[in-house]
């Protein structure tokens, strides 16, 4: 039997203490469409659908958050870019809205209020807040100002911008920071408990630490300090270990870790400064047997759950559509059974 609400459980873990059991964030996005018998495109067309989907998913699996994330390109959609849907996976961004580096100087960030793409996301958060009765954390999401250009202009052009056009890069960061702060705060105002700050480009899988310290790190510090609520930095499968000490200085409370890194080492490096979120392998999950799912959950709990400061989730921030309900249920049940504090060894 649960002795804590999901919110209490998560807050206790964030306080580096052991709650009644290991908190579980099932970061399910598209599975809500399956619950409602809708296509992915139809599902994401209304905030009401996603709110219903999240309520049904939590009722089914009993995890510890509502995940108000729609799809990665929602921010560029707000800037006017196309979103391309597919039947079996997350929507992608279409043609980049910045074709040439000079276009950046003419850009104007969108206003959050009244923007159709963002308003449907805010509507979802408001509905979840009405239904969550303050017992379940609602996780809002932003793409960091530093990582957003991958979708705004394409990765290759962005790397060239970053390395060869420092002034225009700074200009774009200024625009993106203004927009993302306002977008994050609109989500907090609508009822989000915390904001996941997705920043894959800051990972040392993508750029070296020296460059991160001059760019993504400064941007994260500035942006996070202006968000009116707690944040989790998520590097979306990218490595975080070489920059853990830096991430701890950004003001964030949580770090999403990669399956490429050892949870024991990540937990030890966080050293009580950050809560570890992770790191079940979302890709392997697609073909896991029940036994493999159980073992993966037990292994992660064994490695990182002692003493609190740990939330179990996948390593990418989105569980693939191909993961079966049976495996998700196994993850949830194993966490409830094996993740009870005090942990059995």
């Amino acid at each position, binding site marked *: 039997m649960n002795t804590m609400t999901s919110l209490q459980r998560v807050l206790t873990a964030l306080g580096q203490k052991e709650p009644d059991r290991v908190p579980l964030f099932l970061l399910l996005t598209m599975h809500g469409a399956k619950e409602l018998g809708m296509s992915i495109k139809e599902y994401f067309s209304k905030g009401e659908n996603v709110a219903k989907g999240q309520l049904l998913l939590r009722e089914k699996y009993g995890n510890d958050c509502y995940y108000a994330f729609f799809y990665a390109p929602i921010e560029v959609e707000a800037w006017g870019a196309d979103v391309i849907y597919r039947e079996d996976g997350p929507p992608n961004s279409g043609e980049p809205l910045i074709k040439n580096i000079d276009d950046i100087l003419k850009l104007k960030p969108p206003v959050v209020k009244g923007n159709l793409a963002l308003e449907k996301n805010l509507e979802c958060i408001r509905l979840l807040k009405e239904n969550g009765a303050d017992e379940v954390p609602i996780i809002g999401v932003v793409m960091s100002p530093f990582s957003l250009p991958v979708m705004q202009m394409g990765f290759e052009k962005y790397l060239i911008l970053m390395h060869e056009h420092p002034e225009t890069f700074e200009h774009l960061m200024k625009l993106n920071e203004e927009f993302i702060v306002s977008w994050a705060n609109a989500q907090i105002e609508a009822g989000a408990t915390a904001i996941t700050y997705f920043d894959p480009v800051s990972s040392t899988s993508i*750029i070296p630490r020296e460059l991160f310290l001059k760019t993504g790190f400064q941007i994260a510090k500035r942006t996070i300090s202006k968000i009116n609520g707690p944040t989790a930095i998520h590097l979306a499968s990218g490595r975080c270990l070489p920059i853990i000490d830096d991430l701890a200085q950004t003001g964030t409370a949580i770090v999403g870790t990669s399956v490429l890194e050892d949870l024991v080492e990540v937990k030890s490096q966080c050293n009580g400064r950050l809560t570890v979120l992770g790191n079940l392998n979302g890709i392997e999950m697609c073909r896991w047997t029940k036994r493999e799912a159980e073992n993966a959950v037990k292994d992660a709990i064994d490695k990182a759950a002692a003493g609190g400061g740990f939330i179990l989730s996948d390593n990418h921030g989105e569980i693939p559509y191909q993961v079966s309900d049976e495996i998700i249920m196994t993850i949830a049940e194993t966490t409830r059974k094996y993740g009870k504090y005090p942990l059995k060894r």
Partner: protein
Amino acid sequence: MGSSKDIIYEFEKALLSLDKIETKRLLNNENINLTPNEIVSQIVVPAMERIGESWQEGNLALSQIYMSGRICETLIDELLDSSSNKRKNQPNMGIAVLDDFHFLGKRIIHSQIRSAGFEIKDYGRKTVEGLVSSIIEDKIEIIFISTLMYPSALSIKLVKEKLSDLAPNVKIIVGGAPFNMDKKLWKEVGADAMGSDGVEALKFINQIIKE
């Protein structure tokens, strides 16, 4: 000028520092007395191998691989004019992003293969049907397929199925995040091999040439 080991090290260092002038100076064949093909095989490829190893060990970032590959490609283009006969005798090769909108991985591999003196057709983004048609039309012998999204990786199964009937000898080499996360996935989609980087792609090309 120092030993070839020193030059490889200096060249790698200059690439990672994005020092274009120094890379050009190091490869100047008046200084090192090597033919263009020897420069590629004795300096550029070994430096790329060292960079690839560091990437696989998690000690280098994707941006460094991309930017160094970009510099290398320009240098090699100057050394080996693609229209001349200096580029290697090689299998007919192509590279594409399948059903996906993420091009950086493909760009990096394309650039590294060209930096090693090979030619490769860049198909950009293709659907399953479009890619199979191009492979047949261009008589491709090795196709490199890059994906970032998991569903796109699964689409490679369809390419394999279609090629099994139409061109069963075509070798499919896959790469991208889903394959790095799940080391068994390349077999599941019916590929002949997976590569984490351009160096692994080059090893595969050389293996095919030997066969």
